[in-house]
C-alpha cells in the first residue's frame, strides 16, 4: 500500500502523541488518587486526544484508497476526529477554571452552560452526516468540507480560545500562575498555523499532546498536596 509523505507524517506524529499520552496517563495515576476534579478532567482530555490520534491514523491509511470498506472507514475516522475534538474543546476551559480557581460554584456553572453548545456541535456532526452538512467523502474517497463546516469549527475554536484566555485573565487579575509560561503555548499553536501557511493539514493530536504535556509540567511544579486555597489536603 503506497502511502504519501503526508500519511507518514500523520502516522509518526500520531504515534508520538499516543506515546506521550499513554506515558502521561501512567504518570498521573498518583495525581488522580489525590482526588481533585482537575486531575480527572485532565485524564478524560487525554483519552479524547488518544481517540483523535487513532482516528487520524485510520484516516491516514484510508483516505483516497479503494479497498473494501475504505470509504466507510474514512468517513468514520473523520467523524471520530471531530467528535473527539469537541470533547477536548469542552473539557479544556473547565479544567483550567477548576485548576486555577478551585471554585466549585464557578466550575459547576461553567460546566452547565458550556455543555449546551458543545453538545449541539457533537450531535450536529452525527446528524449532519447523511446530509453532508459539515463533512463528507466524495466518490474518490477523498475528505471534503461540507457546506456549513465553518459553523461547528468556529464553536470549537471559540472553546480553544477560551482555554487560552482564561489563564491570562486569572494571571492578570490575581497575580498567581507565576510559573505558568503562557507564551510557551504559542509553540504548539504554531503547529496549527504554520502548516496552514504551507497549505498542509495540521496534526491536531500531537498539538494537543504537546499542550497537555506543558500543562502537566506546570502542574508538577506546584505543591502535590496543595493547601494554597485553604482546603485540607486529602490523605
Amino acid at each position, binding site marked *: 500500500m503506497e502511502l504519501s509523505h503526508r500519511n*507518514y507524517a500523520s502516522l509518526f506524529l500520531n504515534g508520538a502523541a499516543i506515546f506521550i499520552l499513554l506515558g502521561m496517563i501512567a504518570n*498521573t495515576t498518583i495525581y488522580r488518587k489525590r482526588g481533585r476534579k482537575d486531575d480527572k478532567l485532565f485524564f478524560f482530555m487525554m483519552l479524547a486526544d488518544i481517540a483523535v490520534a487513532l482516528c487520524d491514523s485510520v484516516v491516514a491509511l484510508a483516505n483516497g484508497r479503494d479497498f473494501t470498506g475504505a470509504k466507510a472507514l474514512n468517513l468514520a475516522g473523520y467523524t471520530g476526529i471531530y467528535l473527539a475534538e469537541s470533547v477536548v474543546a469542552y473539557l479544556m476551559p473547565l479544567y483550567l477554571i477548576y485548576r486555577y480557581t478551585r471554585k466549585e460554584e464557578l466550575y459547576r456553572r461553567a460546566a452547565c452552560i458550556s455543555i449546551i453548545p458543545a453538545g449541539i456541535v457533537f450531535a450536529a456532526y452525527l446528524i449532519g452526516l447523511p446530509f453532508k452538512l459539515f463533512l463528507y467523502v466524495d466518490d474518490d474517497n477523498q475528505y471534503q468540507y461540507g457546506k456549513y463546516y465553518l459553523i461547528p469549527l468556529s464553536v470549537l475554536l471559540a472553546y480553544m480560545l477560551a482555554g487560552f484566555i482564561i489563564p491570562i485573565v486569572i494571571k492578570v487579575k490575581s497575580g498567581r500562575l507565576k510559573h505558568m509560561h503562557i507564551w*510557551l503555548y504559542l*509553540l504548539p499553536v504554531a503547529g496549527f498555523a504554520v502548516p496552514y501557511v504551507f497549505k498542509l493539514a495540521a496534526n491536531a493530536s500531537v498539538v494537543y499532546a504537546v499542550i497537555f504535556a506543558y500543562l502537566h509540567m506546570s502542574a508538577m*511544579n506546584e505543591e502535590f498536596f496543595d493547601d494554597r486555597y485553604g482546603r485540607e489536603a486529602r490523605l
Partner: protein
Amino acid sequence: MSFHGEVITTLYVEGTALALVIGLMVNTAGTRRKDGVRDKIFKLLIIHALFLSVTDALSFGFRYQSFDGATIITRVSRNLNEVLVLGFLFHWMIFVDYLLYGSRDHLERKYRPTTIPIIVCVVALFVNTFTNFLFEFDDNQIFIAKPAYWVIVAIEYLYMLDTVVLLLKFYAKSSGPRFIRVLPFIVPFVAGSVISRLSPYEVRSLGMAVGLVLLHFSLMNERCYRDEETGFYNVAFLKYIAGFAAEHDSEGGCSIIFDGAEKEEELGAIIRDELPGKCAVVNMGHGRFMVLAQTQSKTAINLFINAVKEAAHEENMEISADYSIRDASNSGETFIKGIIEKI
C-alpha cells in the same frame, strides 16, 4: 525555495521535538537544585536534545536545494549531529547509573574508560568533514553511509544496550516502589533511531524528546514522595500510605522512630547500612527517621534498634528510639493515628 514531501514531514517532526524540548527546558528551570548531580546531567541531556533537533532539521532541511551553501550546511550539521548523539548517549549512561546508585566515585571508576570510544568517534567525525570516509552527500544533499559509519552506529547502540543491562540488573536485585521509569525513554528513542535508519525520514530527535518528557514526569513523581537529600521517603509519602492503609486494612507491622538530634546525614547513613529487607524509611526532618516494617516481633525490632544504636555509638552519636506495633489488639486506624501524631 520549495520543499519536497519527506523534507516537510521531517521538519514538522523536528518542530514538534523542539517544542517538547523547549517546554521541558522552561518548566525544569525552577526545579533544579544547585548541587543536584542528577539534575545537572538531566539538564545536559535536554540541551543535547535541543541542539540535536536543530542540527537534524538543518542536515535534512536543505535536501534538493541547489544554492551554494546548502551542501556545506548539510555536511557540517550532520557531523555535528553525530557528535551530539554520542555525547547524549554517554551522558545518558552516566545519568542512569547515578539514578540507580547515587555514587560519584562509582561513575568515575566505571565510565572513564568508556570515554575512549567517544573521543575516537569525535575525531573520526571531524576528519570525515574533510575526507568523507564515514559518510557523504550526493548532489541532492541526500545522506550516503559508507561501511565505516556503521561502526559508529554500533557504538551508539552498545551504549544504549549498556543502560538497559544496568537497569535490568538493578531491578532484579532491588525491591520497593519504583517511581522512576527509565524504559519509557529507551523505547521511543530506539524506535525513532530505527525508523530513521530504515526510512527516508529523520525522527530520532522526536523519539528522544518524547522519552525525555516521560522521564521528567517520572522524576517529578518521585519528588512528590522522596526526600532527595537522603533518598528516603518524605512525610507526604507517609500521609499517602497512612491514608491508603486506613482504607485497606493492613495485616500488621510496626513503626520505629529514631531521633538523631539534628545529625540527619550521619544517622541516615547508619540506618541505610543496618536496614533489613522489606522496610520503608521516612525522613521526618531534624534528624528523625521513621522505619515502617512488616514485622510484629519485638525481638526482631529490638535487634534492629540495638544494631543502629551500636553503630551510632561508634560514631560518637547518642540516639533515641521508640516503636509501636500494630497487632490484633490495635486497629489499623488507631495505629495510623499514632503514626500521624508522631509526625
